[in-house]
């Protein structure tokens, strides 16, 4: 199946603006993120934290809403990866 991934703000320099990824059926959002960081070491470094390789240092939207890493992806899904903006 094919899934479209878009990166925003500083993640663009690390992962490019938009890519279509081919993934095996049954892949989860966590699988997709692993796939993305494995081909973009800069992003991997930026995201790694205490909770593992994607240690919560990215906000990830699946089909325009918040998602869980265990969510199973489907053909045509859209994923957005953006840095966490938490300051005020």
């Amino acid at each position, binding site marked *: 199946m094919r899934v479209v991934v878009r990166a925003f703000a500083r993640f*663009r320099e690390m992962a490019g603006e938009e890519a279509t990824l081919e993934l095996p059926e049954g892949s989860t959002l966590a699988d997709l993120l692993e796939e993305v960081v494995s081909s973009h070491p800069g992003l991997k470094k930026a995201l790694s934290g205490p909770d593992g390789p994607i240690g919560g240092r990215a906000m990830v939207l699946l089909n325009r*809403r*918040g998602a869980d890493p265990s969510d199973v992806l489907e053909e045509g899904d859209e994923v957005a990866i953006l840095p966490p*903006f*938490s300051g*005020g």
Partner: protein
Amino acid sequence: MEDGTRYDRQIPLFGEEGQRRLARSTALVVGAGGLGSAVSVYLATAGVGRIVVVDGDVVEVSNLNRQILHWQEDLGRPKAASAADTLRGLNPEVEVEAVPLFADEDNLEELVAGSDAVVDALDNFDTRHLLNGSALAAGVPLFHGAISGLDGQATTIVPGMTPCLRCIFPRPPPKEQVPALGATCGVIGSIQATEVVKHLTGLGASLAGRLLLWDGYRGRCDEIPLERNPGCPDCGRGREL
């Protein structure tokens, strides 16, 4: 209004009736830091009748690169009191209430219920999620903003209509001190203030259902369309569980 010409340059935008609507409105600004500075200054100068500023912190010198509500002479003072003085100085027609408390589950309910617009000018997602819940429960629109470095984001949450903050960001990011430039707080806080004024006067098209991303590093804007999460624990099916 004692000074008939104060709002001359903005009344063409929304008429005398729009100005009266602003004057009749209460805005709750939660957080008197960088975002809260920009938002509350522009809401006060626009003539929003009552502004409630909530912050339990005191002014430190490291705040002054971005928190324009607070000046050198305010060091050590409660931010809420310092904010109220600055806002009254900018526009004596505005009633300003200083609440020198950190927003929490107990105080938010009453504060939110008495307002027409709730501004998220917080610096952490745990309290943002509490504020989201209070705004949803009271049915009051929530104007979200957040920054990091040169970048930031904003959206407008209308209870019952748009996704809520937890639909978009279900889990808080790790607690980290983020870099913050005053001008970035100015950009995002000004977008939030624009959204509040538009909402209160009925002007324009809001950021409802759209996350605006400001990429200051590259000088560009993007937006992500948003959808509700039917299982959202704050606004969806998950709420009853």
